[in-house]
């Protein structure tokens, strides 16, 4: 089987204004949504209490809310978790109350509703810890972007490709953030690690295209950059799509079968992989072109020998 039996020849470069526009709209929408709606930050980042409970039959959330208010937790947020027999309870930080105290009180409320109800997990995060995790997550994303920028600049001898790669790759986590704020999906620590994985893998595609661009320029330095970039993207297109299809297969399996704990994580990966595929095909090379990429930028001295294969 082969999806691309004949070589494709899509004019990616001449139509790039269109793709820039599409990206710009999505990015603006994402940033807008991020500022208007904000992120639904999990207790990992805000501090507070998160309780998961399982009931023997469907539970009435209003009854649960009333019960919790009666126990002194007036600000409790209650919602179903996967099914009507599981509930997630979120409380603001409770200074002076340890996990044991909270557990006893919440269990009291649960047992009044369903004597066989069970607390399956209970997280108490101090607000100081939450703040640290938040700044740690931001630092992690920035450090990753910086290191990757340096690596690409060194590897390909030109900041033009670096800039293209970084702008394309910035675009992906922004769309993930936009989607998470739009749908108000809970944003927790695993989502941040998914975002970093997305940054790594979106670049993976971009780098494969860049590698091909370099190879084409090595073949002949007199080729027109527009033609080289178009050809490079087209030649790697089947690989880009194939790889992403396979990765999406496993990530969708994770989303559908991995349970509640990995829902946000796999959702971020799905959005990120789709955005990453788009940005590495339509955006990264186009930006390098608009920065004036030419053969000599990639081949600073004489024609460089291609990297040797393993002996």
């Amino acid at each position: 089987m082969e999806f691309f039996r004949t070589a494709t020849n899509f004019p990616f470069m001449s139509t790039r204004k269109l793709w820039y526009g599409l990206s710009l709209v999505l990015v603006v929408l994402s940033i807008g949504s991020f500022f208007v709606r904000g992120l639904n930050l999990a207790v990992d980042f805000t501090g507070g209490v998160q309780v998961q409970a399982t009931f023997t039959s469907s539970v009435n959330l209003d009854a649960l809310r009333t019960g919790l208010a009666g126990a002194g937790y007036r600000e409790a947020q209650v919602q179903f978790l996967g099914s009507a027999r599981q509930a997630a309870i979120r409380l603001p930080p409770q200074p002076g109350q340890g996990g044991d105290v909270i557990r006893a009180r919440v269990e009291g409320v649960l047992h009044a509703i369903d004597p066989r109800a069970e607390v399956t997990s209970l997280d108490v995060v101090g607000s100081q810890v939450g703040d640290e995790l938040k700044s740690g997550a931001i630092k992690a994303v920035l450090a990753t972007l910086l290191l990757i920028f340096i690596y690409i600049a060194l590897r390909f001898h030109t900041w033009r490709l670096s800039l293209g790669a970084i702008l394309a790759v910035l675009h992906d986590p922004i769309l993930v953030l936009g989607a998470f704020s739009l749908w108000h999906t809970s944003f927790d620590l695993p989502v941040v690690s998914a975002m970093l994985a997305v940054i790594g893998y979106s670049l993976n595609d971009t780098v494969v295209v860049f590698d091909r661009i370099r190879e084409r320029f090595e073949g002949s330095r007199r080729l027109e950059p527009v033609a080289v970039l178009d050809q490079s993207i087209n030649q790697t297109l089947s690989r880009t799509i194939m790889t992403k299809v396979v990765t999406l297969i496993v990530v969708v399996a994770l989303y559908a079968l991995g349970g509640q704990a990995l829902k946000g994580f796999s959702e971020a990966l799905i959005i990120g992989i789709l955005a990453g595929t788009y940005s590495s095909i339509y955006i990264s090379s186009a930006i390098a072109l608009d920065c004036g990429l030419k053969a000599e930028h990639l081949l600073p001295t004489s024609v460089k020998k291609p990297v040797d294969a393993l002996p």
Partner: protein
Amino acid sequence: MLEFPRWKYVLVAAVTLLALLFALPNFFGTDPALQVARKNHLPMDEFARREVEQSLSAHNAPFIASYLDQGKLVVRFAGVADQLRARDEVSDALATGYISALTTASRAPGVLRKLGLRPMPLGLDLRGGLYLLYQVDVNGAVAQLLESYDQGFRRALTSANLPFTDITAFTGSKSAIPNGLRIALPAGADIGAVREVLRKANPELAFTIGSGDAGPTLLMEMTPTQIKARQDYALQKNITTLRNRVNELGVSEPIVAQQGIDRINVQLPGVQNSAEVKDILGKVATLEFRLEDAQNSAAEAKVRGRAPLGSKLYEMDGRPVLLKRELIATGDQLTNATSSIGNEGPEVNVTLNGQGGDSMLRNTRLNVNRRMAVVYIEKSRETRTVGGVKTTHDLTTEKIISLATIRAVLSNQFRITGLTPVESRELALLMRSGSLSAPIFAVEERTIGPSLGAENIRMGVQALAIGMLAVFAFMALYYQRFGWVANLVLLANVVLLTALLSMLRATLSLPGIAGIILTVGIAVDANVLIYERIREELRNGVTPQAAIRAGFDKAYSAIFDSNVTAFIAGLVLWVIGRGAIRGFAVVLTLGIATSMFTSLMGSRALVTLMYGGRRKIDHVSIG
């Protein structure tokens, strides 16, 4: 012509075999088990094993197998019911000599274990348990040190007959001297002599001369190095103490580790009730042994509201008691403490070190028929919110737990009576594990129920299996024979990754499983890069063998560069992340390394076996 050097075949085969061996223990699954240890910390031996086994058999608690492992006995059971019955059995019939902890044990044959091959330990999110993150009050530790300097200076100056007006300790960034002491002297005092005495008492401290309202002052400021050293000491001491206390709790495979500069994380698999555990772990308690002051009247002191010089007023069961300030011995001088039931009810048997024993001998010889008190001192921290402002207070509770007549001369071994069974057990535990050198308080606390853990692992493994099957089907359809090569290589990659994680004893968490699943999706990439390149070469009219060769050679730089970026993201996550997130990062970065090996070496070996050598090929089955 397509060739692959023989040594590389050997390398691929050897790595694959080794990986299979190391990954093997993970595929057997686990049984409920009981970990039994000796109370006196001696390793378990064959004798102890027979004793436990016989007791279990005699009391109808069937087990599958038992073996000694790292000084502990592990007993495996067919079900949780048997496991719980056996636990009750050990805690009833064998309570005097052994403690037990619920755990899980691998079903892998003993041969593997003896070779040192073990499955990956499971994280709390996959087995249930309690995670605690403690903040250590390192500034409190500095304050404590200043306090002891303060006392030492007073003693030194008094015994040298040098008068001083006052000594004040300063702590915290708001005070005039961030961390230091001020010694106020009367006008005309001999500063040189004072300084000499203080320098002798603590040679490492530096003093500067200032002037106060009434006379000269000496200022001592701790250097940043000294402060840091004290904080590090407090943290390390607390980690040791917490480790001791955790071991006393009878939890299997606990983790106590430093996190950041002033935090300690404690992971206790299988523990659900945090109240009792936190109570014991966080307790800052010590003992003091003091003589009763019988010369003065305690009742009178109570009326006056003040104790006479050299004594301190306490209350015991509602009656006032005067105790002398001098210490006979303190909890720090304890070397061992065990609780038992004696003739007079529960008791704690105490062993003192040489210094404490000497002091006890000297004091009790001179004071037979007088009374000695054991004072229990507990420090706690209370947070109160008054008008929206949070304030914390350190509370010290001192309580006489026993006041008994000295009937005979005591030395380094004696008993403390007058406690309830629970009190004596807890006291012995706290005394044994040592005291915390600075208060700690929990800033993060997570419990995961065992059912949720089991659910997480079931779902994770299911997602892995279905995801892999879907990828296999797709690859076989799309690339035909080469697709099967890729599938074999993918499978080898998962085995190799599992083997590496097992060798490193990395803890497997739910994000870790997600990382393995993601690695499967990613590892395909290298193969796809190679195969697409081969197809491209074939389209250009190159002969099959040359196309295969060119495919592998030309795809190399793309595979390398593209993996490096993902590797960087993984490394950052590894360095900055913690807990389960770090687990994900470890899997991700190792997965990239293994996938490069399997796709570049393993895949090439297989393809060369199929199409290599001198045979004539006119068709390549690559879809």
